[in-house]
């Protein structure tokens, strides 16, 4: 874009106009923080609700129920579901949440048959405590990394939430979004502690042999219990999350407009800074052209300044959002379904790329105007 030896000139122009640069960078950083946060929510929502070819899990829920407190199914459905062709396993789960409504800090207990759970999740990695401890103690829970980080939980501690007092046997890391904000305990422990009683569960997680069988198996399960006292509704896991958290998904979708508004704010800020800068430096640009700089080179220097300022602001804002998301380990939880706010290097890089493009767009018009001015008339104007 500009010759390498011109880069220090651009950097000096940006760095040495300290007040102007700081104010512009601060404004851009705030807008990019908001934009990145919205993008992080969107990324989390997409990851939690978008079906992929690898998905082989169905969730069986009580028909017409949306909250774990009201979804009650007989535990003996398990054996009947497992007899359906293509079903590998059906895991009964009792879900208890500290808050049924949408919140950034919900504790979700999931009571599961311990050995079945470990067989289903061979990839989980215990990063604090031990699996053996969890197997041994009836009141033990394995806590997802994000929940542990948010609540400051470590192995060996006990904690209270949703009326359950549990012992933290370990903290685990999992690639699955739902696991990160969940405490897994023995099924009977959660059933009894939550006073739901034995023999009744919130849902079944059904694993099928092949992703192509999901729809057929789901239909067969619902058909099997259509006339039962507790009829079921069966969804793929991602569709289930999307259905439960539809309000959140809608809100995050709307929030994207706010994100676009943030980008418009960044564009306006950078454009304003460049226009003011160019207007204040008419003679300076004329001097550069008198020295032999072409109009095109002056234009590219102006655009480069815009890009640099936008990148600085974007880097600060996006990095702050990523750090905040990492440290806060936030998750949008609704009805026991957690949608983690995920922010990482890809989001940071995409934020920077967007800022780079905005810097170019913001600088184009003032740069073009500056490059087309008659040099002599610039001095007459001054």
């Amino acid at each position, binding site marked *: 874009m500009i*010759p390498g*030896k*011109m880069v220090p*000139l651009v950097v*000096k*122009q940006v760095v*040495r*106009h300290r007040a102007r640069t700081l104010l512009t960078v601060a404004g851009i950083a705030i807008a990019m923080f908001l934009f990145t946060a919205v993008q992080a929510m969107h990324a989390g929502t997409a990851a939690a609700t978008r079906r992929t070819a690898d998905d082989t899990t169905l969730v069986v829920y009580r028909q017409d129920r949306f909250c774990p407190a009201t979804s009650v199914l007989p535990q003996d459905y398990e054996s009947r579901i497992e007899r359906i062709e293509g079903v590998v396993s059906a895991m009964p789960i009792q879900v208890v949440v500290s808050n049924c409504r949408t919140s950034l800090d919900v504790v979700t207990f999931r009571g599961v048959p311990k050995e079945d759970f470990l067989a289903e999740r061979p990839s989980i990695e215990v990063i604090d405590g031990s699996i053996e401890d969890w197997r041994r103690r009836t009141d033990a829970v394995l806590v997802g990394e994000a929940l542990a980080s948010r609540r400051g939980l470590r192995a060996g501690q006990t904690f209270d939430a949703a009326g359950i007092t549990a012992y933290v046997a370990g903290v685990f890391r999992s690639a699955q979004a739902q696991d990160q904000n969940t405490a897994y305990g023995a099924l009977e422990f959660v059933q009894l502690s939550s006073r739901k009683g034995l023999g009744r569960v919130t849902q079944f997680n059904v694993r099928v042999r092949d992703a192509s069988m999901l729809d057929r198996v789901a239909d067969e399960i619902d058909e099997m219990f259509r006339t039962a006292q507790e009829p079921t509704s069966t969804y793929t896991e991602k569709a289930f999350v999307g259905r439960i958290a539809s309000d959140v998904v809608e809100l995050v979708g709307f929030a994207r407009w706010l994100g676009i508004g943030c980008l418009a704010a960044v564009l306006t800020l950078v454009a304003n800074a460049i226009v003011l800068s160019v207007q204040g430096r008419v*003679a*300076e640009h*004329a*001097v*550069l*052209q*008198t*020295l*032999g*700089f*072409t*109009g*095109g080179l002056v234009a590219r220097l102006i655009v480069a300044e815009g890009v640099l300022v936008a990148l600085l602001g974007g880097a600060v804002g996006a990095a702050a959002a990523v750090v905040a998301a990492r440290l806060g380990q936030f998750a949008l939880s609704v009805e026991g379904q957690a949608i983690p706010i995920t922010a990482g290097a890809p989001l940071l890089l995409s934020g920077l790329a967007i800022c780079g493009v905005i810097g170019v767009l913001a600088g184009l018009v003032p740069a073009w105007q500056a490059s087309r001015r*008659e*040099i*002599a008339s610039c*001095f007459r104007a*001054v």
Partner: protein
Amino acid sequence: MTLIECRGLTREYRRGENVIRPLDGLDLDVPRGDFLALMGPSGSGKTTLLNLIAGIDRPTRGTLVIDGTDLAQLGRSRLAAWRSEHVGYVFQLYNLVPVLTAYENVELPLLLHRMSAKQRHDRVAEALELVGIADRHGHYPRQLSGGQEQRVAIARAIVTDPTILVADEPTGDLDKASASAVMQLLQRLNRELGKTIVMVTHDPGTTRYAKRTLHLDKGRLVRETGPAADAEIAAVPEEVAA
């Protein structure tokens, strides 16, 4: 040997319905190594002629050939390249870039030339030394006096070793002592380095440093006076020269 050749040089501006003609069919020859002062009342066409010679403005009619190049035939980019190689411009208000140090200001025109950082450094150091401001190389323009700023501007104008040095009222914003020092510097550049200098001035006192003075009025050449007496120049006090 003629370096600058103007024939029927005319510059017109349109301002609303009116056509303003600051230069009206001027003929002029400037030999290589000349030190030419342009004088005349406001609106007489001095600065317009200077800007045409510097290649930052274009004639409406007539020809302007400098060192064998007809400037009217050059496009914007080629004219910029020509300026970079052949012209050093000294402004009345110095026009240094405020966020760059004296050193960086002088280095600016060299960024357009193919040379290493070491070569640029040597050239800048030499130019600053020549104008007697090497000890202020790290100062920003706001930290320099008017005379010092003008010296930096002269260093910036000569650092590329241009064919012509043009100066638009180079002492117009300076006190008497600084003005004399700047004029002596320009005279040295002309006499010792053979630089061709075209200077616009309102101050008759500065014309004594030039080899000849052209008087313009209403865009035409009305009179030419000869070189100033060396005795007058020698009368400048030593402390001013320093």
